[in-house]
């Protein structure tokens, strides 16, 4: 059995364990368990890269996104003072997102395409990584806007929205850098920044427009806080689903 299929199931188990640890057992065990899950997840990514380098592994985003999200959670956990309830709830949601994303990657794999020669470009790799970091930021934004509805005090909700906005803004930064990298790659490789053979670029644009909408909703204050939080959560979720749609294949049961 190859390393990749084994490691993804282990990563799934460890992310689920981290969620249980955070909720029930002991918060102090979160970092080691999550770290173990991250290591295993990274092994799976490394395996896919080893099968493709210097070319780009195809449709790697659903496997890479949980790893990047785990990194962000771990970095936040390690630099921050003991987390408050809000932060813990956000981490729980982030762990849930990691688990669901990786599970979907296992059940709907699209790992059968061979890498193509033209993907041997620094801009192609930058597009993948920047886009994944952006997506991970969006997921944290969704988590914060979801926690908004769990918290009851106005001050806490205000903090949740500020954090959601902050993560959404970072997500837009990296998402935009990803799109620019993709355009550079496309221009160098095909002569035009948008190649209409592959419609996946349109889903990236859809996610970008949705998040630009979210940011402008915040700046315009046209909607109230609650409505904006709902839009952050639902609109963000739609953006994530759209951005990953092209990377999933048909249902493949593991049995």
């Amino acid at each position, binding site marked *: 059995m190859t390393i990749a299929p084994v490691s993804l199931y282990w990563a799934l188990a460890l992310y689920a364990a981290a969620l249980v640890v955070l909720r029930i057992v002991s918060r102090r065990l979160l970092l080691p368990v999550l770290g173990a899950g991250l290591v295993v997840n990274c092994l799976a990514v490394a395996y896919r890269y080893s099968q493709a380098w210097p070319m780009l592994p195809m449709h790697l985003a659903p496997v890479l996104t949980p790893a990047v999200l785990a990194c962000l959670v771990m970095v936040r956990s390690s630099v921050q003072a003991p987390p408050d309830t809000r932060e813990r709830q956000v981490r729980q949601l982030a762990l849930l997102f990691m688990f669901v994303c990786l599970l979907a990657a296992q059940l709907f794999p*699209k*790992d*059968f*395409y*061979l890498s193509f020669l033209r993907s041997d470009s620094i801009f192609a790799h930058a597009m993948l990584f920047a886009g994944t970091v952006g997506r991970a930021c969006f997921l944290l934004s969704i988590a914060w806007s979801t926690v908004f509805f769990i918290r009851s005090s106005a001050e806490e909700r205000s903090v949740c929205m500020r954090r959601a906005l902050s993560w959404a803004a970072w997500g837009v930064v990296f998402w935009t850098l990803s799109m620019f990298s993709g355009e550079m790659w496309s221009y160098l490789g095909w002569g035009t920044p948008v190649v209409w053979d592959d419609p996946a670029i349109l889903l990236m644009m859809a996610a970008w427009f949705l998040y630009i909408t979210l940011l402008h909703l915040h700046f*315009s204050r*046209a909607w109230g806080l609650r409505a904006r939080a709902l839009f952050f959560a639902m609109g963000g979720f739609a953006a994530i689903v759209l951005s990953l749609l092209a990377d999933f*294949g*048909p249902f493949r049961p593991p049995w």
Partner: protein
Amino acid sequence: MRGVSVRSTAEILLVGIVLLVFLLSGCRQEASQDSDKEDRSGGEARPAFLQIGEFAVHRISANRTEVRDGAGRTLILIPRGAPVPDDCDPRHVVRTPVKRVAAYGYFDVAALRMLGVLDEVLVGVTVPEKEWARCSADVARGMREGRTAYLGDASSIDFERLKQMEPDLVLTWDPSSLPLLDDLHIPAVITSTPQATCLSARMRYVQFLAPFFGREKEADAYFARIDAALRDIRARTAGAGEQPKVMWGDIYEKRVMVEPGNAWVGELVGLAQSSYQFEDVFGTSCIEISVERFLYSGETADIFFTYRSRESGASSKEAIARLNPLIKDIAPLRSGRVFAPQPCYIQSMDKLDEILTEISAIIHPDLYPGYMLKYFDELPDRDTAHDKDTRS
């Protein structure tokens, strides 16, 4: 600055919608006007623009038709005697009707047969006479009579011989011949495409070639024939209880190639109430995928169509397993059915209706009682004594 009132926003939106409606209605109006443009032949109404997969035909006027070939090149068809417009590159001008054609591929030769012009126009092929003799007697006869020349293998064309045959047009899948054909001032059409040909494009390919010969009626008749066959397949298989799982491809050394879901075979399998195992795969014909995916799809497949013919080693399931030990355990080789193309399959694309019907009959044999295979062979479990003798 806060946002302006919602009313102003609505006004702007209304302006945008009105603009869009004008744009679209203008397009529709022009489209309906263009669809009334007359064809050169017989004065019948023909669409001004026809898209056939990655090919296209754009009738600009009675004296000018532009076509787009598989490589995205534009050729301009000008009737004989009509002046060549100044904006045309002479290398891309084709005088119609075309009277002399050299064709690289079996499918293009079959297309000429579909249009009823093969005997008149075919002057060069890239396959020797003995390969045509069994399945394409008309081509073999033309070669014997000296009307059609063997130009050499496609990778090493005898351009001197080609020049002697004086073709008006070359139908080729090989872009490397373009520079040399340009030197000889012979226009060429690239007949291969980056993406696999879908079912509609496969049926309509003759409608792309028809303007070259002024045979639009024949092309339409051919399309109608194929369409009728498809409707028959749909009708027969509509009530089919079982949905067999079909795969189409093969493994060569370490390369796995399959027909993608967007190819005509993938679409036909779906249309015939069955499940194509590579329906989600998108790309060129003979697309390469991972071994793991091929084997996974093979675990549950009922029918396997291999690219190889008997002559290239697909004489039995046992032979295929011996050639490709990796796939020896896939379900069709263990307990299902395996089919290999007969030699005439590749030369019989003018009988696409029969081929489509045969594929449907293979998938649902109970719906086609007494059907005799003409284009595919069902492979036995083991080699016959004859096959073993042939191999040794």
